Structure formats: structure tokens, C-alpha cells
């Protein structure tokens, strides 16, 4: 009986301790980042994995890709389509379906020339599923500082420095 009373008094004290802790947090500063108005530590974004992008070669600004198909074979989600160009090793088509990508870096690590990397496009939104079927060659062209005067198709696709590459239509092979 006495023990039960003492136990319960101790229990009541533990409740007061709990109240004091939450009370202390009540007056301490908040941890929330008010997202659109504040941005979290930008250091965190350095390792962020956005959709893939092609790495421009230092000298030419063209893609380093040699159409070896290693990335296509490594990809667990079958989200890459690379077609070899008519002349040389440069790819004619480099399609990337971001909806299927699991950002596992299998392609990036298996690329023998280091031609692809993850972008840091954090604020990526798309109005439709198709808009996430990206054409990485067009994206590379759009990012180039001095876009080389293009062929007709690239002109139609270039949309300046947009977050999203233009939607790809009708080119996806079966």
C-alpha cells in the first residue's frame, strides 16, 4: 500500500518532468524550413540525384557517349534507349524515361567514358507522364553555353534553359 502510493507519487513526478520537457521545446526555436521562402542547407543538394544528364566533353561540348550500350544493359528499369549514329560512335538518339528510373547509378557507374551523371534538378515538375520522357541529347544542346548552330530537329526542341527537356514524341522504339 505504502509502496503503491510512493510509486504513484514518483509517477506523478515523471509526468511533471515530461511536461517540463515539452514546455521547454514549446519556447525553443522551431526546426521547420519554410520551403518556398527558405531553402535548406544547399550543401545537401550536392549529392542529390536528379534525372540523368549527359556530360559535355571539355573541348567540343558534344556528348562523350560512344554508344557502347553498357548503360542500357546495366539499367534495372530499362529506362534508357541509345541508338548509334550513322557516322562515328556518337549516339543519334539518347532517350531517358525518368518515370522508370530508380536513380540507382548503375548506368553512371558502368559508363566507360563517364558520359552521364546525375543532374541536380531539385525542382522538377511535369504536367504529364510523357513530359518525363527526356531526350538527353536535346537537353545537352540546351545547356551548352554557345549552342552550335543546329539542325532542324534540335531547333524545334530547344527551349532555352528550362528545367524540363521538351517532351519526346513518337520516337520511342517499340
Amino acid at each position, binding site marked *: 500500500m505504502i509502496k503503491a502510493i510512493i510509486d504513484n507519487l514518483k509517477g506523478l513526478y515523471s*509526468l511533471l518532468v*515530461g*511536461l517540463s*520537457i*515539452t514546455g521547454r521545446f*514549446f*519556447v525553443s526555436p*522551431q*526546426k*521547420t524550413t519554410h520551403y518556398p521562402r527558405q531553402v535548406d542547407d544547399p550543401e545537401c543538394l550536392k549529392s542529390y540525384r536528379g534525372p540523368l544528364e549527359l556530360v559535355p566533353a571539355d573541348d567540343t561540348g558534344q556528348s562523350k557517349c560512344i554508344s557502347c550500350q553498357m548503360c542500357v544493359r546495366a539499367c534495372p528499369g530499362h529506362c534508357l534507349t541509345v541508338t548509334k549514329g550513322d557516322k562515328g560512335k556518337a549516339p543519334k538518339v539518347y532517350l531517358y524515361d525518368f518515370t522508370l528510373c530508380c536513380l540507382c547509378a548503375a548506368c553512371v557507374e558502368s559508363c566507360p567514358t563517364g558520359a552521364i551523371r546525375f543532374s541536380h534538378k531539385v525542382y522538377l515538375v511535369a504536367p504529364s507522364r510523357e513530359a518525363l520522357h527526356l531526350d538527353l541529347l536535346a537537353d545537352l544542346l540546351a545547356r551548352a553555353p554557345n549552342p552550335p548552330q543546329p539542325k532542324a530537329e534540335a531547333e524545334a526542341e530547344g527551349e532555352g534553359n528550362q528545367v524540363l527537356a521538351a517532351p519526346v514524341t513518337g520516337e520511342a522504339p517499340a
Partner: protein
Amino acid sequence: MELTIANFVQIVIACLLIIALMVGNAVIMVYIERKAAGFIQRRPGPYEVGPRGTIQAICDSMKLLGKQLFIPGNVDWLLYFLAPVMAFLPVLLLFLPIPFGKYLVALKVDDGILLILAFAGLGVISNILAGWASNNKYGLLGAARAVAQSVAYEIPMIMALLAVVFMAGSLNLSEIVERQGTWPWQWNIVFQPLACFIYFVSLVGETNRAPFDLPEAESELTAGFHTEYSGMGFALFFLSEYANMLLVSFVCATFFLGGYKGPILDGFWWTFIKAYAVMCLIVWLRWTFPRVRFDQLLNINWKWLLPLSILNLWVTAIVLKFIE
């Protein structure tokens, strides 16, 4: 008291004011509760709608008003719609004898506290009806819990208030306030600390607030007796929950905290300040503690609060006799 036309008009006006108070209180309390929860959890709480999220609660209530009245299959529709109304209406009556200020009383009755205690028991019926009528097993379990809990916690509540009534020698709430002084050490909480504690615990139990929120225990019964309610039905339950909280806080302020008397300038603002302080304490409890289990809830009541309150009553009676 005779029922004259003047009295009648006074009561009607008072009822309208009380309804306004209940609705306003719900809006304010929703805001306070969400902000307090946010600050305790180190986040801002409602923030985007209006300056510092002040009109968030109003927007939410607008949304609830605008929702379709949804009737689940196989419900007893009469009881299903009656229950929220039943939850709301008795609370209205309970505010009538509360002395907000010296002259600001809707209904000066000599046994005001009896009126409150008698009608406070009605609230649980709405919970039973809601749980029973909505044809939901969670609802039924919640209703069963509500009954046992409400019946149990009323008893120590009455016993605790009775000790104060012994001291004041009157059941009239205004009289009880008048017997207390203006300074905090002249309030009943100093003379009756145990009664105040018991009353406070049973107040939390009576209003189904965490850590005694068993009838709606979210992690066990999803939402308890109001699982099947949405839109206005849910809003009415919500409203009555906060109105009940306000009521018991007013009673607490009246009985233990000196009512409308304060160190400077007596008046109804003191009642409100004290009542809202009690409510903030209830909110604070909710966001700090886990929930007790049902058998523990009843054990706390029957094994601790009830004997303690009887003891307290007994000691009070003896001491009063000796003082005489």
C-alpha cells in the same frame, strides 16, 4: 425564481450569446491547439492561411460545412443524425448558471452546480447514440468505453466539487466566487489542493481528452464513436468537445481559481483568463503524454480518485465542524 417576460428575454439573449461563445471558442481553441502542438513539436503549426495561419480554423469549419452529408450503409439514420445534435444542445444549457462576471450571469439559480452536474451527464448519451447508430464496430467499442469512462469520472468530480460547496455553504456559483478573495492565496485552490487536483484529473477524463481520450483513441479505434461521421456531424462533435472543455474550465475557474476576482480590477476577463489557462494546460497534457489503457483508466478512478475524494470530503467536513 419566477418566469417573467424579462427573465425569458434575458435567457434567450444569453443563449444566443452562449452559442456565439461556443462557436468562437471552438475556432479559437482549434487555433490554439494546433499552434501549441506545433510549437511543442518544434514546427510552426498552421501558417499559410491568413497572417500566421489565423484564419485556418475558419477555413476548416467552412470546409466541414460545405461537405456532403454522408450516410453510411445500414445506419439507424434517425439516431445517426440525432447524436451530434444531442452532443451540442445540453452544453448550451450548462453555461446558463456560470457567473462570468459579478452581474454577468444568464440564470441566477441557487443550485447552479446541481444543474451543471445533472446535465453534464447527458453528453455521454450522444456518444452512445453515435457509436451505436453508425453501425461500426469501432464506433460501438468507442461508445462502450465512453459510457464506462463518463459514469466513472463523474463521481470523483462531484465529490471534489462538494468539498468546495461544504466550505462555501452554498450551491450557488456566484456565492462560491464571492466567498473567495481577490488574491491567489485566497482562492480555493490553496484550501482545497487535493480537491482541485482530483477535479482536474476527472475533468480531463470527463471531456475525453488525452491522455484519457479512450472513446476516440486514434491508434486503437481509428476515431472511436465518431468514426463514421464527416462534415457537419463531425463538426458538431468537435464543437461540443471544445464547448465541454470550456465549460469544465469555467467551473474550475469558478470553484478553485476565484472566478471573476483578480488582483486588479475584478471582472469577467478574469474568468476568461483563468478558464483559458486551464484549457491550455489540458492542451499541453495532450501533446505530452501517451494514452492510458482502459482498465488503468478505471483503476485510476475507482482505486485512487474516488477514495481520495471521499477522504478529502470527510476531512473538510470535520475541519469545518471544528472551526465552527
